[in-house]
């Protein structure tokens, strides 16, 4: 399992659109499960509703964990996504 931390800078945070994009991306890695943690809550990043329900906003630090498959590739793709969108 590999992970990285990311500080959200987008003022609105993970609302519908970025959540949708993130979930879509998280589903796209074959054999890899992506988890997102905010505080003490962890959800599968592929579960759009749960992701939105975290209410992640600017200033929140989230942890992304990937497990299985090509973890390095997934990690890189996710990091790039977060930097660009959030």
């Amino acid at each position, binding site marked *: 399992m590999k992970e990285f931390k990311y500080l959200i800078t987008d003022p609105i945070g993970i609302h519908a659109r970025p959540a949708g994009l993130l979930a879509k991306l998280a589903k796209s890695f074959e054999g890899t499960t992506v988890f997102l943690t905010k505080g003490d809550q962890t959800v599968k990043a592929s579960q759009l509703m749960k992701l939105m*329900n975290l209410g992640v906003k600017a200033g929140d630090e989230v942890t992304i964990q990937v497990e299985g498959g090509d973890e390095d590739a997934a990690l890189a793709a996710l990091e790039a996504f977060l930097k660009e969108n959030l």
Partner: protein
Amino acid sequence: MALDYRKCAEEIAANIGGGENVISAAHCATRLRLVIADNAKVNKKALENVDGVKGMFESNGQLQLIIGTGTVNKVFDEFISVTGVQAGTKDDVKAAAAAKQPIWKQMLKTIGDVFVPILPAIVASGLMMGLVEALAKVPGLGFGGSDWFAFLDTVANTAFAYLPVIVAVSAARVFGGNIFLGGVIGLLMIHSAFLNGWNVANVDAINSFFGVTDGIIPKWHLIGNLVTIQRSGYQGHVIPVIIAVFIMCKVEKWLHKHVPEMIDLFVTPLTTVLVTALVTLWIVGPIFSTLETWVLAGAKILVRNPLGACAMGALYPCTVVMGLHHMYNVIEAGMLAESGLNTWMPIASAANFAQFGACLAVGLKVANQKTKSVAIPSSLSAALGITEPAIFGVNMRFFKPFVAGMIGGAIGSLVAALLGFGATAYGVTGIPGYLTVSNPMQYTIVLLIAGGIAFAITWFIWKEETEETEAPVVKAPEPVKEVEYKVPEKTVISCSAGEIKAPVEGKVVPYTEIPDETFKQGILGEGVGIWPENETVVAPYDGEISSVAESKHAVGITGAEDMEMLIHVGVDTVEMNGDGFEVFVKAGDKVKAGQPLIKFNREKIKAAGHPDIVVTLLTNSDDYDDVKINV
């Protein structure tokens, strides 16, 4: 809806000043019994309104919350875990509670506890009986002889004719016995081998029922003249039945404790029923039938002069409580045969109408919706001359209204006796009484006096309830009510997992036509956009709210077979930060199709420069291969 034990316990704890205010706690078959350190911290009004608490009373220091058999233990367990209070036994609590309520208060409360659950049955019967009997007295209608009358009258008086059975079942529940054994005792007391209790004073009925000629009800001699059982039933009776079931529950509990478990099932019920039957019919029964004879004889003497009538007017409701009022027909029939004028009826009417007045005052004054919903129909029934619901369900529980009714009845009866009018038939009182009275004008005066006085006294004297309502009520959030919602007709999305209805009315377009790149590309799932024609978003299927956006413009709902939906009002409306939106649900709420979720203001959305399209997407549409969009 099943009771949420945890929530019930939490609400109770919140309304008694928390666990630190509890000295000890225990429960019996129906009640949570608490000994409270500081009674000032107890919010009684709020406790009564806690979902699951059916009633409450105090006996100096011991606070008892009636919760019900099978439920109380679960609430108790939660209560202990919520408050961290040490569980005690019933006897600990009893010992901790130094003094007790006066016994008569406890008895009134017990009768109330027994009656409240059965009120729907007797209110239905009372209203129907009043109407049917009134119709039967309308001259020239011929309704009284019709088959319809016979049918309706039978239906209407069922609950009253077999009242002991209903009372017995309810009493068994209150006293913590087996309700079916209670039912057996109730049935026994009106067994067809006994003369109908309504006829015990009617010589002809006795003669024809038993085939005797002396008008004396025969007895069964079980042990010579020492143990005898009079063969009369207890139709319409209440008190003897409650006493009988009380005895039964005592016997049953004692046996359960002392009989070895292996033979408990056949020894205990059998012995319980037999002992109760014997004691009831041998000792309790005769006490009451003697009392009945005295009341009847006393009543006959009293009604001969106005002061006596006044006393009778006051005592009448007490005889209703004992179930003796059904025998007054005998007095009335005697009067009619003697003089052709029934002067008893105005007294009964005044007494009944006074209970109506008192009950109505409670109904109009009380803020508690539960009490109101009982008091209003009960008072209607009382106006029609059937006062049991009003007396047992309302007036006696609060006691002061009952006394107010007695005063009103006394004064009304006095006036009636002085005026000297009467009725030309018997069997109806209250408003239907107009059909039989000799002087409607005077009758009106009597009813107005009796009802008016009782109403006024109750209105001004009976106050505690309204004072208590002003106390702040601590309540946990309301659970989602089981209400019927109008399910939208149009299906916008369907797949193997189910159908998704339009959450809002308006023109439906496929998601590819939503004016937003993300939605258009289906990144958040396939679905539709709806250009709204109204401003309320409703649930598109039965499900659970999985998320609510902080900016109130979007909700997620999980439905059958894991269908995940997003309803997003407007495009980029997240920027409005909640202004113009109102959300009615929170994450975790169960919702029904058609239930309102969000209310939005189209003007504000447009003013903020956003399209107001309601984006309705099946976010996990990838999981289904047969998603159809219906535009």
